């Protein structure tokens, strides 16, 4: 009985302080979001400007989009970007899936966190360093495969992005299901084919989406590694922008932006799926 009384006195209920009650917080966050999104917003708006000016609004028009789609250079760059992104995504996702399965499911591999670290490390290396290293390496071994060079380079830096959602999915997956499959006479490859991979699929798709968008958006490494004529969309945009910004560039950038948003959203939704 006496215990209860002493307990009562000792308990201090901490006063919960909501961050929103801090003075000026809402204005601060509003400014933050303006800072983040206003430039993008303006870019999108002016892609629909009928005038050639990138700063003075005239009237609504989608003419720049038609013009961009009709532009041979843009078409070629977009096609290159697509080919590179598709192959880099494919290779990176396969590699990342195998790595995640090996690290997540093998009982023989020791130091699993070290392997994970090594796979994720390229995220932390400054991109310019990777770019220079890749360029030096390619020219040292005399690799000259055109788009192939870029695909190889992109595959490498796409792996960690593909790996992370797959690994997360695998970690959240009940290993008991694979044990249950074995108990029900499924051998190792049946278990992988019928249980592990179907359940891992949302993670794999999510990783692939991320890898795709990272490849589509990459600039520095591509710039270094790309051979003449192997322009991608970001490099084309960079080349044009140096001659002055036109609403045509705004239109292309807006399309890139929309593709990014779609893929990142897809990656998020599919990754969240149970």
């Amino acid at each position: 009985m006496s215990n209860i009384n002493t307990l009562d006195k000792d308990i201090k209920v901490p006063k919960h302080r909501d961050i929103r009650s801090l003075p000026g917080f809402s204005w601060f966050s509003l400014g933050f979001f303006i800072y983040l999104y206003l430039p993008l917003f303006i870019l999108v708006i002016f892609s629909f400007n009928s005038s050639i000016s990138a700063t003075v609004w005239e009237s609504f028009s989608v003419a720049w989009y038609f013009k961009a789609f009709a532009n041979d250079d843009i078409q070629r760059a977009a096609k290159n970007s697509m080919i590179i992104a598709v192959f880099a995504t494919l290779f990176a996702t396969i590699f990342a899936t195998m790595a995640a399965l090996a690290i997540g499911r093998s009982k023989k591999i020791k130091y699993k966190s070290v392997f994970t670290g090594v796979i994720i490390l390229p995220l932390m290396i400054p991109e310019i360093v990777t770019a220079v290293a890749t360029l030096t390496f390619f020219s040292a071994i005399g690799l000259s495969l055109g788009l192939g060079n870029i695909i190889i380079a992109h595959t490498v830096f796409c792996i960690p992005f593909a790996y992370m959602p797959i690994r997360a999915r695998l970690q959240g997956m009940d290993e008991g299901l694979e044990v249950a499959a074995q108990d029900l006479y499924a051998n190792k490859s049946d278990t992988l084919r019928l249980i592990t991979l179907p359940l891992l699929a949302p993670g794999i798709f999510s990783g692939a989406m991320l890898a795709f968008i990272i490849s589509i958006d990459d600039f520095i490494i591509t710039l270094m590694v790309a051979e003449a004529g192997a322009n991608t969309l970001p490099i084309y945009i960079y080349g044009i922008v140096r001659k002055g910004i036109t609403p045509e560039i705004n239109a292309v950038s807006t399309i890139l932006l929309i593709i990014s948003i779609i893929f990142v959203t897809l990656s998020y939704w599919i990754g969240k799926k149970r």
Partner: protein
Amino acid sequence: MSEDLDLSVAITANNLRKVYPGNPPVVALKSASLKIADNEFFTLLGPSGCGKTTLLRLIAGFEDITDGELILYGNNISNLPPEIRPVNTVFQHYSLFPHMSILENVAFGLRRLGTAKLQAEQIAQEMLELVHLGDYGSRMPNQLSGGQQQRVALARALAPQPKVLLLDEPLSALDLKLRQAMRSELKRLQRETGITFVFVTHDQEEALSMSDRIAVMSSGEIQQIGTPDEIYERPANRFVADFIGDANFYDAVVNTTSENNINYEIHGGQILQSPIIEGITVGDKVTLILRPEKIAFVDNKVKNTLLGKVSEIAYLGNTTDYVISLSDDLTMKVRAENHFDGEPIANIGESVNLAIDPKAMRVLSA
């Protein structure tokens, strides 16, 4: 070890041992030897960490055997991987495949064994009907309640007609009413299929009510194997007596022996009796085990009673537990059925007389 070709024995475990490597290594199972008969409902019972699940996983093949051998109907299966062993498991958390329909789940094992799709689905449907879920085949696992998922897990494990069905605490995630219903359901399934069941639980009531035989386990060892009433009425040691049901334990010394009884003196000078037991003589130190429901309240005209005072009362619905102080530091728990009006037989502080039939006394040599 002799080769066991006797087909009335389903599983023979000879000195099974499991050590998990590590620093320090963990001995999950010290050395287990047992025989499980064909068509038997056999239960591994014990507290968590006693090695019962490890033993089950060794039989299923999910863990490598550190030492010893495992024989299934005459075949040494010690080194076979789980997908080759004709043994299926019902898992504690069901482990239904979430991306497959209920029917696909149940047909999974048969399909892997090479049964044609149509036939596998037909058998799966029959299995679902056996567990009263015939209409649920097209649903997905997450559309079913816990109890229904449990029955699907049963159907899935039974569908390939395993030689032995292993059940790893399958009822522990269900609520009380469902658990009780599933007990008779499991018993019925075992009777109807004629498959040997090996059931793991920490719930003594489950074990006592369903099993043909029980192995009580503790700290990686089998303490006793026997029928439910053997385990309860004649516990082999103090652990078994303590784990199964309630018991009073008394350290005692054999005081005198008479023609029919042995008299034991317990701490405080009171005398308890048992029938004559071979090999127990005056002066021996023993442990006496006495179940609380085998002690009766009597009036003071009866001879040879224990005297005490009621010190605690716990009302349990159909029965009431009374803690009786026999002396300053010696108590005895007595369980009595409640009267029609639910009034206690005695109140706290009241003096009572207790009578014990000597035949109710269990004696372990200390």
